[in-house]
Each structure stands twice: as C-alpha cells, then as structure tokens.
C-alpha cells in the first residue's frame, strides 16, 4: 500500500492558489502553437476546458459521443450554480462556501481543492454573464439568487430550471468561437476506447468513429478526461442514456487510480418509477425544496386509502400530515442535504408510509407556497387577500414563473397537475462523487493524463451539495486546468508532434479491436440491456441508499458471475464497421460490470457511514450516518491489477487544518 502525494502547495490556505499561480512555469504563446491537447467530453468541464485551452493557443482536439457538443449531459442540470458573491448580503464568503462544501461532503474531501473552488466561484458568474448567459434577474435588473440544501445563505444563481442548459450553451458558444478559428478540431459521434501511454506519459487515445465504425488513433502532448460520472452503473438513474464510465475505466486500466467509487449521490427528488420497461429516471430540481414541503400521512389507514385511490392527498388534513424533514431537522427543514433527505424518505417508505402503489413515493407539496406567494401578490396589487381562489391564482402564477418548466415536465410524464395536487417523488441515482484520483493539479496518477469535472473525485467528498456540480465543472475547465496543465506542458515545448505510428498505439488499437470483435462475434442469447438491468438491480439492492457487509459481499460475487455470463452469452447484432448502437452499449456495459465490483469492494472496505455511503452497521441511535474519523479520514484510491478483486488500495490521508471536524448535524 503506497502513500499518495496530492501535491498541495505549502502556505496558508487562502494564499495557496495565488502563490501557486505566481510560481508555476508558463508556456510562451509561440510554443503553445506546437502543443496538442486532447479533451474527451464536452460537458461544462470539457467544453470550458477546450475553449480556454484553445483560446490560450494550444491545438485542441475534442471528442464527444453525441452528435454535437451541445448535447452533453450537463445540459440537464436544472437548479443552479453556487458562487460566493454575497450579493444578498446574507453573510456569504469564500470561507463559508468552503466550509459548507467540506461539511456537506462529510469531511471526506481535500481542503485545498475545495478552497480553490470556492475562491474561483465568483469569477464563473462574471465570466458567464459576459458570455451572454441569461441568468434570472430581479426587477432592478440585478442577478437573483435562491437557496439550496445544506446551506444557510442564498448563493445559487439560476436560469429558471434550465441553469445547466444555459451554462453549457455558454461553454459551447465559447467552443464555437475557437472551432471557427480552427483552434479546436471537434470530433462529434466519436467515443474514446483507450488511452495510449508512451514512456509513462499519456500521449493519445484510440477512438471509434460511431458513424462509420472506423478505429482512429489521435496523439497529443496531454489528455484531459471530462467524461462525467458513472451513475448508469445502476441502469436506472437521472444520467443520460449514453453517460458511461468507459473513458475513465480505460484510463484506470492504464494506471490511473480510481478514488472512492462507493461515494454516490442518490437525489431525493425524482419522479418515482412506473414500470419494468422504464429506461431512465427524471429529476425534479432541488430548487423545488425552497418552496415545496415534503410529507407523508401520519396514519397507515390514510396510506392505504391513497394507494387504493379512495383518498386524495389534498383531502388529508393538516394535522394528519407528517412533514418528516421539518420534524427531524428543524434548523434546515426541507433544505437538508441530499443524502439526508434521501435516507429520510427511504426510512418513511420502509416503515410503510409510501404514498403510491409501489410504496416508494412521498409528497412534495406546493400548496403552502402558493398561498404564501398569493397573499404577497394580493397585498402588492391592492387586491383582497382573503379571497382564497384569487390568492391561489396569484400564487400559482409566481410558482409558474419560478419553476414552470419543471411543473410542465412533471405533468407530461405523470399526467397529473402539480399545481392542484402534490407531486410524488422518490430518491434516484444522480451523481457520483467518486472518480479518477487527481492531485492538486487535477492530474491523475498517469503523468499527462488529467481528469476534470464529475470524472474526478476531488471536491465533493462523500456527498455533493446542490448547485455545486456546475460550479466545479466550470471552475476546473475555465480557471484551474488551464494553469495547471501549462506547468506540465512547459516541459514539452521541444517534443514536437507525437507520432501515432508506434508500438504503443499498435497495441492499444489491437486491444480495442479485439474487444469489439469478441462482442459482435459472440452471438449469445441475451441482449446488452438484459445484463445492464441485472447489474442495475444488484447495485440498487446492495449498493444503494443503505449497504451492509453481507449485501456487499453478495454483490461482489453476483457481479462477478454476471460479468462471466455477459462475456459468454451476450448478443450484439450487426457489425463493427457501421453505426451500431448496440455495440456502443455493449462496450459501456462491459466496463460497468467491472466498475460495479470495485464499487462494492470499496463500500465493503469503508467500515463507516459518511455522506452518500451509508452502512447500516454504522449509524447513530437516531439513524444518522456515523463516521469513523480515526480510521477512515482518507481517500481510497484503487490501483488496477487485472481483476477488480485484485485492485490495490492506496490511501491519501486527509488533513483538516482550517476547519473543525465534527459530527455533521442539520438539526
């Protein structure tokens, strides 16, 4: 077991990044023109990194599996982006954003990285506004904010329920400017299938052209992975259908350590599942918890009546409702962090209070907010605040202006009107805090290979706070990586173009082709989805919101035998040299089948509960997560050694010098 060096600069926390920037090596503009960088993925992290690196003068080659970089799944982020602007004058600061993020992550993230994130957060908002991102504004024309879970200030900037879309289109527009100048060469409908390491350094990738099936070699002086998270290991998640771990996993197999795979975020407010055919789950933004109140009935007979359709939610009396988050966590109420809210929903549903036929749903109710806003509007407009139907109408208009697209989405999917009847929600897999291990420079354990955004592990510890993923993606891509990668590339100014005609490229290409051939020639009995669904069920049952030693051991066995079965019996129709969507899926599921096992192994090794990782054996008497700081204040970084079972653990000890480590309480 080795020790990992995170490369955090010396000095006081608040001066680290400034001093670092003052002392790194730079590459002069003429030399940048001779240096190539590959970026895999075009979400907020990959898009912003590509644009910025190209703008600095590097030759950037960017890859995405979608038909356009604008489609990356950052586009689906709804609620907002955090920044310590303190425009509301409610006591926000860089330190407070840092503090909230470390605490929200249950003291399992790296101090220096998180502080840097908080520090550059304000630049992001300035940058995006300059790019023409249409954030929500108040009537004075200034930017509006709202509040998210786990914090006591309003620091979230938003664009209705489409913040991710607007930010991504901002990054996409910055990319377009560089594509037009020829500084970014864009490879749409391409999937990275391996990273090529030459003399210990990442020097290129093998990619498959998804339109023609052609296998291509691409070289560069550095490779940046911005390929997102691995939530689709659960089959059902809020991720896009194509979101996958392949780029990250192939990098892992080439020497990049994979950190904390068991830290997964299960988001409390998603639309409950409805049937076996279901292909994905839809998130309802956390911003709804600003105004929505979460409850289940207090009485079992009301639950029964709801399930058999003889009682409607709106007819349950106020005193018969259990607003369980407000009851259990009076200080934060409905705005507790996601892991806490999800477990509380599970607890009520496991106790038999789930409000739909599957027993896996709770109510998210806007009636109080509608009346509150309606009264305010009536007063403002000089209308009768005692006219209930008028007040309701006025209130609904305000709620519509704030969350209109989310309400519309809910209505289209569920076929119920959420303005009249409470929404039904249940937790679903949403985000993965774990990912490729990176040092302070965002470089993986393979020199020249970087990981940014959700693909890395670094900033969110064991639980991510709402509206922080967008912040991290853009911070990494716009403001962190462009500095740190320059320091590395300053050694490459004399290297010249990297040849793809070498044995390392030959071998990597050979391996990729072999796997593709195996998949299409197998002609087994079961489709790729058959295996993906089975894997998803194991993951959800044993590695979901609550985990046990016994369940995890079983999961490891089950995943291994499922993987063996997959390689014997999977059926992939069609050929290699054509557009073949089943073949794409098959490669991704093959990697999920390996990652899933490492995930369970990591969860089994971590004998504590922290953030999104909840081991039933380690809970307080009130059922809250119980950390073991003495033994587990470290990052678990796994080194690939053949089979997931053989992975070797490396520990990066976490030191907290600027924050008091204590029990994470939201009561």
């Amino acid at each position, binding site marked *: 077991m080795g020790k990992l060096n995170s490369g955090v600069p010396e000095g006081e926390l608040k001066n680290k990044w400034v001093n670092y920037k003052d002392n790194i090596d730079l590459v002069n503009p003429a030399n940048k023109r001779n240096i190539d960088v590959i970026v895999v993925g075009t979400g907020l992290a990959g898009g912003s990194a590509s644009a910025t690196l190209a703008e600095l003068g590097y030759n950037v080659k960017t890859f995405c599996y979608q038909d*356009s970089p604008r489609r990356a799944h950052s586009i689906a982020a709804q609620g907002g982006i955090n920044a310590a602007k303190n425009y509301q004058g409610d006591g926000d600061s860089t330190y407070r954003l840092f503090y909230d993020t470390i605490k929200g992550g249950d003291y399992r993230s790296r101090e220096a990285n998180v502080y840097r994130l908080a520090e550059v957060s304000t630049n*992001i908002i*300035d940058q995006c506004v300059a790019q023409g991102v249409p954030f929500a504004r108040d009537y004075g024309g200034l930017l509006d904010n709202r509040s998210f879970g786990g914090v006591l200030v309003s620091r979230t900037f938003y664009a209705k329920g489409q913040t991710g879309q*607007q930010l991504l289109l901002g990054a996409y527009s910055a990319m*377009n400017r560089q594509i037009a100048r020829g500084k970014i060469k864009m490879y749409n409908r391409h999937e990275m299938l391996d990273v090529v390491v030459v003399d210990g350094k990442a020097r290129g990738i093998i990619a498959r052209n998804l339109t023609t099936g052609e296998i291509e070699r691409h070289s560069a002086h550095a490779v940046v992975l911005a390929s997102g998270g691995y939530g689709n290991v659960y089959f059902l998640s809020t991720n896009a259908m194509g979101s996958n771990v392949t780029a990250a996993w192939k990098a892992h197999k080439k020497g990049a350590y994979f950190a904390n795979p068991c830290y997964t975020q299960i988001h409390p407010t998603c639309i409950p599942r409805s049937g076996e055919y279901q292909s994905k789950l839809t998130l309802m933004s956390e911003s709804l918890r600003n105004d929505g109140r979460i409850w289940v009935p207090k009485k079992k007979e009301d639950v029964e009546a709801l399930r058999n359709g003889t009682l409607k939610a709106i007819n349950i009396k106020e005193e018969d409702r259990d607003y369980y988050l407000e009851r259990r966590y009076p200080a934060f109420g409905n705005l507790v962090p996601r892991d806490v809210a999800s477990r509380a929903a599970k607890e009520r549903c496991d106790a038999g209070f789930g409000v739909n036929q599957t027993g896996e749903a709770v109510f998210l109710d806007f009636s109080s907010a509608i009346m509150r806003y309606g009264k305010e509007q009536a007063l403002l407009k000089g209308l009768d605040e005692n006219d209930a139907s008028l007040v309701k109408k006025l209130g609904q208009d305000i709620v519509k202006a704030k969350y209109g697209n989310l309400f*519309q989405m809910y209505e289209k999917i569920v076929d119920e009107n959420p303005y009249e009847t409470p929404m039904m929600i249940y937790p679903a897999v949403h985000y993965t805090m774990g990912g490729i291990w990176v040092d302070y420079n965002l470089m993986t354990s393979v020199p020249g290979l970087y990981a940014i955004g959700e693909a890395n592990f670094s900033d969110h510890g064991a639980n991510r706070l709402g509206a922080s993923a967008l912040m991290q993606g853009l911070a990494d891509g716009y403001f962190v990586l462009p500095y740190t990668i320059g320091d590395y590339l300053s050694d490459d100014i004399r290297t010249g173009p990297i040849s793809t005609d070498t044995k390392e490229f030959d071998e990597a290409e050979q391996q990729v082709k072999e796997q593709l051939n195996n998949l299409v020639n197998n002609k087994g009995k079961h489709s790729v989805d058959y295996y993906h669904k089975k894997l998803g069920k194991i993951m959800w049952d044993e590695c979901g919101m609550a985990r046990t030693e016994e369940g995890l051991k079983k999961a490891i066995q089950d995943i291994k035998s499922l993987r063996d079965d997959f390689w014997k019996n999977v059926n992939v129709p*069609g050929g290699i040299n054509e557009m073949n969507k089943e073949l794409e899926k098959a490669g991704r599921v093959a990697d999920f089948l390996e990652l899933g096992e490492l995930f369970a192994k990591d969860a089994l090794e971590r004998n504590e509960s922290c953030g999104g990782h909840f081991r039933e054996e380690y809970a307080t008497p009130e059922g809250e997560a119980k950390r073991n700081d003495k033994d587990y204040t470290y990052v678990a970084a796994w080194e690939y050694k053949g089979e997931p079972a053989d992975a070797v653990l490396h520990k990066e000890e976490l030191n907290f010098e600027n924050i008091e480590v204590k029990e994470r309480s939201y009561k």
Partner: protein
Amino acid sequence: MNLKLKIWRQKDANDKGSMVDYDIQNVSEHMSFLEMLDVLNEELIEKGDDPVAFDHDCREGICGMCSLYINGEAHGPDRMVTTCQLHMRKFKDGDTIYIEPFRANAFPVVKDLVVDRSSFDRIQHAGGYISVNTSGNTQDANAIPIPKDDADLAFDAATCIGCGACVASCKNSSAMLFVSAKVSQFALLPQGQVEAKDRVTNMVNKMDEEGFGNCTNTGACEVQCPKGISLDNISRMNREFLSANLKKS
C-alpha cells in the same frame, strides 16, 4: 394496447431506404415513445433482426438529441414536448403509427431514423457567441443591470435545444426559428451589441449556404417547437439583419 408501426429503415447514407411494418403488443400507456421503441428493439434483437437506430440521450427533453417525425409531426402529436417525453397515452389501441426521420436537405439521413444535424453547429460557428476570453477578469456580473423583461426574453430565446423540429416541420425546410433564437438571445442583451451586425449577417449567410430554405411565415415551426420558441424571434432577426445590412452598404 397493440399497435402497428411503419418505420423508415435505411442501412446507411447511400441506401435508398423504405418503410417497414412492425407489430407491437401490450404497450403500456405510461411508456414514453422511446421506451416503446426500446421494447421493439429488444424483440428484434431476440429474433436476430437488426434493431432500429434512433438518436436519443438525456430522455428528459433538454439535450435535443432525439428527433423523429411521428404521424407527420415533428416529435409527434403532443405539444411542448420532445419525442422522449411523448407518452403512449397519446395513442390508442389499434393505431397505426408512421415513424420517419426529420427530413431536410441540410439533415441527411445517417441510418434509419438518425440524421446528421451538423449544419446547425456550423451556423453557430459562424457567429453564435460573444467574443470574450475566459480569463475570469471580466467586469463584475452585476456591473450592468439588465431590465428583467429583456433578460426573460433573452432566456426564452436561449432555451432552444437545437433539435431541428422547426426545420423538419417547415415546408421549405427553413432554419429561421433556430437561427433567430440565438440571434435574439444576444440582441436582447447589452453584451451582445458589439458584434450584433456581423453576427446576424454571418449566421444568416451560413444558414443559406447550408441549404436551408426560406421563411414564408407559415408558423409550423412555432407550433411544433418543443420549447415554444416564439415567431417574434424571426421578426427580431429580420429587423436585425435589415438594419445591419442597410447601414453597412
């Protein structure tokens, strides 16, 4: 419910292609349209047939990757939704459903229901951005107040997902709604003023070059747009284009 499907099958860009009939049984009304196609594909794979290729990704109506021309309508019979959000409750037992790709000269078919919309990207390369470096040293975000109404209108225009339904719905295969959405977003914001004239000129020229048709104010694009992008944007773009080119000459 049981349905008859007539689906466009085309092996690759060079193949002629044709409609092929399929039957599908026991479709639940709660399924999304794409989940219905997933089930069909599972059955085809089981039988050893080639599954139907179609584009899709987020399946929550925001990435713009899914398309499909269903019973003669882009994204099908429901309004303000993409195909991935269209649910089978909009159909009834015994229905015959025609499923075709988005058709336009500027959107060549790649395979089956998959089309190439890279012409949209190329229009964006021609001017769909504000030229600001990502230094982080721009002025404070609140330095320029923007009237809420302008900001809201800019936002409404910016919600375009680039799916191409407007083009597929238009009898002229015009991309005016798509292009005008981006032009409007920036035209409504102070940040977009500096380059406004070049932007509108370059984007409109590129649109013509890519082979999109002209606008004849039919308004089908607005009706079929899953995000409700307003025709007002086209008027605004026409004004912008006119004023840019009058002053130039």
